């Protein structure tokens, strides 16, 4: 059979494979593929980069606080549980990370091209492939199991401490909505959180359905320690998201919907202010929509609540007085409640 190499030459080029092959001596690879003299350099560079990265990581680990690798926690049991769950996943993640990156780097170094080396012509290995598929699946089943085991503690609020606050504002929610989880004894300090461009408004429950005479505050929420606080999260304009990292996860405030969460600040955290801010883009001043939760002792809270109630009542009266002076004919249209509380 006559040589037919021309048939297989790249179309319309004068440069047939035969020519190319002839020009190269036996047992070498084409110029474009030849290992360049930079290999030792490359290895040195890689080694230096890895050492640097390792050192950098150590410096960071030393300099940075504990939140370099884990979420914030410490203000509430649900935040602590999420932190624990995160750490369990983190350990597994590090094991997978180092194992896979290790094999990758090992393969890259060990099997780099050497003179005379021949690549193994392996197309696959069914057993091995089934093995790692099942392995990955088992790992995820474990993760799922751990998550479900911890889910109850993260989502279900506990009862308030015996020394917790149990005065005005603590209510039992009748016919709670499906997402509105209540502590076993049903009693919690109930606060309605209302997101609006670019403020958070907190309305403290007072046991009746009239929301016009409730104690409320903006931006700074004051809560008693040792007391379960349940939140009813709403929005009145665009979507916002309630997030105080140390008090647990974030929950979106969606207009037309109500979202629920809870927290319970431990007794020894009285006097702490937990910082947070809106976590869902809500417009130009989204970055400035801050929220603070100040934990105080139950006694201080009772006093604060009473003081706030008085201040609001005084304020309402003053406004009514002022309006009477400004608009004498409209006085009967202005009630104390609607003066300061336009949006319940």
């Amino acid at each position, binding site marked *: 059979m006559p040589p037919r190499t021309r048939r297989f030459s790249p179309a319309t*080029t004068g440069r047939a494979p035969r020519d190319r092959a002839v020009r190269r001596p036996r047992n070498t690879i084409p110029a474009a593929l030849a290992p360049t003299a930079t290999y030792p350099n490359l290895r040195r560079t890689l080694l230096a980069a890895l050492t640097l990265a390792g050192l950098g990581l150590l410096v960071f680990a030393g300099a940075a606080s504990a939140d370099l690798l884990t979420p914030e926690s410490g203000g509430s049991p649900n935040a602590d549980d999420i932190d624990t769950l995160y750490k369990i996943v983190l350990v597994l993640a590090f094991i997978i990370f180092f194992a896979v990156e290790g094999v990758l780097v090992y393969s890259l170094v060990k099997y780099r091209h050497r003179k005379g080396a021949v690549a193994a012509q392996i197309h696959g290995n069914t057993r091995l492939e089934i093995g790692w598929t099942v392995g990955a699946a088992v790992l995820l089943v474990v993760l799922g199991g751990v998550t479900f085991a911890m889910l109850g503690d993260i989502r279900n609020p506990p009862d308030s401490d015996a020394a917790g606050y149990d005065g005005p504002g603590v209510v039992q929610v009748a016919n709670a909505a499906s997402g509105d989880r209540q502590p076993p004894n049903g009693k919690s300090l109930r606060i309605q959180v209302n997101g609006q461009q670019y403020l958070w408004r907190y309305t403290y429950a007072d046991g009746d359905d009239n929301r016009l005479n409730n104690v409320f505050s903006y931006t700074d929420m004051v809560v008693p320690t040792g007391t379960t606080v349940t939140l009813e999260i709403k929005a009145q304009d665009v979507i916002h998201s309630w997030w105080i990292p140390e008090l647990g996860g*974030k929950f979106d405030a969606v207009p037309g919907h109500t979202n629920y969460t809870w927290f319970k600040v431990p007794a020894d955290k009285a006097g702490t202010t937990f910082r947070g801010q809106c976590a869902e883009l809500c417009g130009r001043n989204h970055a400035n929509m801050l929220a603070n939760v100040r934990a105080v002792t139950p006694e201080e809270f009772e006093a604060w609540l009473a003081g706030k109630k008085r201040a609001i009542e005084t304020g309402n009266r003053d406004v009514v007085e002022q309006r009477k002076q400004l608009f004498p004919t409209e006085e009967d249209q202005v009630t104390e409640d609607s003066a300061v509380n336009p949006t319940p």
Partner: protein
Amino acid sequence: MAVVDTTAQSTTGVPQVLASKVERPSEGWTSWVTTTDHKKIGIMYIVTTLVFFVLGGIEALMMRLQLGAANNTLLSPEVYNALFTIHGTTMVFLFVVPIMAGFGNYFVPLMIGARDMSFPKLNALSFWLLLSGGIVFYASIFFSPPEVAWTAYAPLSGAAYSPSGGVDAWIFLVHLTGLSSLVGAVNFYATIAHMRAPGMGWGRMPLFVWTILIYAILLILALPVIAGAATMLLTDRHFGTTYFVPGQGDPLLWQHLFWFFGHPEVYIMVLPAFGIISEVLPVFARKPIFGYKAIAAATVVIAFLGLLVWAHHMFTTPSPSVVLIFFMLSSFLIAIPTGVKMFNWIATLWRGTIVFKPPLLFAAAFLSLFLIGGISGIFLAIFPIDWQLHDTYFVVAHFHYVIVGGAVFAIFSGLYYWFPKMTGRMPNERLAQISLVTMYVGFTMTFLIQHSLGLDGMPRRIYEYQDIGNLELYNQISTAGSFVLGIGIFISFYNFIRSLKKGAVAGPDPWLANTLEWFTPSPPPQNNFDEVPRVRSIEPMKDIRRQVERQSGIVSDDREPARS
């Protein structure tokens, strides 16, 4: 009429009528405007999307500058909000998704032994639609750019809270690029289904072609949903409908519709990147791909599961438990085929003889970085953990590891791999190495620390922050890293432009690659193949080289034992 040799050992092509009429090829810039040649269209796609990549990168650097100091006053909140909206939209709709179409345009016909796409004129149409979408969107910066993030959540994107035309420009971009991608996807599907070389069954199709096929199917499934949702938003804004208006419609409906498209979009971006990696690794490890069928099957499974995980973007919304649990478990499931791919790629390197050329360097970087993006995804899939991490810089870090560490490093691997084919010149290796190391270091500086930023309590999309904890320090590391990353990318671009003229002449098959595009000269002639070879395996070029050796008695490289 040629005699067709159908014996098993033959790579003889099937005789075909090549041309009934020869037209004078047009030259100059009009040849680009009027072309229906898939290679010219592919190059226009790649160049256009890279220009948008540079624009998106400049926007990113501006944002990083603003965040370089706590309480910075460099940018106003409206400019900052516009920047992240344009940055995200650009990178998704005008860079990563369409550059994959660019690679697909240029290389799918070549890899399957076709002379063009099924519908060359539709192909040109999809490019011009893409470009007009980009122009419509970017024109808005001269009027009132959108400030609602690339997700355009209602009611913020409604007429009441965003009355200016910016959101409308965004909607038109979604429509125009969506139409472009849909037309392109139909074309890819038809081309791949009907125009493969003789002998190329589904089981011998290159893995890049597999991923482009799945990319096309996902686009066809997902794009109509966002097109519909964007139209509903448009009628809400201007014609009094209330689909997403609280009380009458529901803002959460927008999120469901958006993410029903948005999550498959992630796989639309990353699956073709997987395809590039699956082509590059075996060529430079000088070893067949490990587990071809498993990788192809994993692509299909990822795409299917990718349609069932959308609400994991909505774990913090008021949603029933069953929804949270379903979407956590479905997101877990998708880790399995992704892990399978990762293991198969590493097994492809195992016992190979790895040649560290630029495409392999970028592919190796892809493997090491994408792994981190995959692992951080597991944290986010567990919904109680997501309650802490959602909408923070942890998520920003996660998806940049997936889309930059994953897709963009793969795109660079592909650019270096195919540059000789597209231009006929070799890129400079030294510059490629410097670029890789700079990009790798810059990327890690920028995004690794952002995990900690999120854990430390910094939400996304804020134009300023107070210096609480280590926020300012972490942000400064990230900002410094972003400029290193920018320099690394710039070096590669310089390399490409320089090599157009100064690069060594590549020849048809400089890498000793496996697939049919390397059977043609570099760059390929307009008709691609004078004769389409018969395909006998997933590595037709290896067969062709082997047959040349057998018939000539000359061994062309040191991978094969000499035959007598």
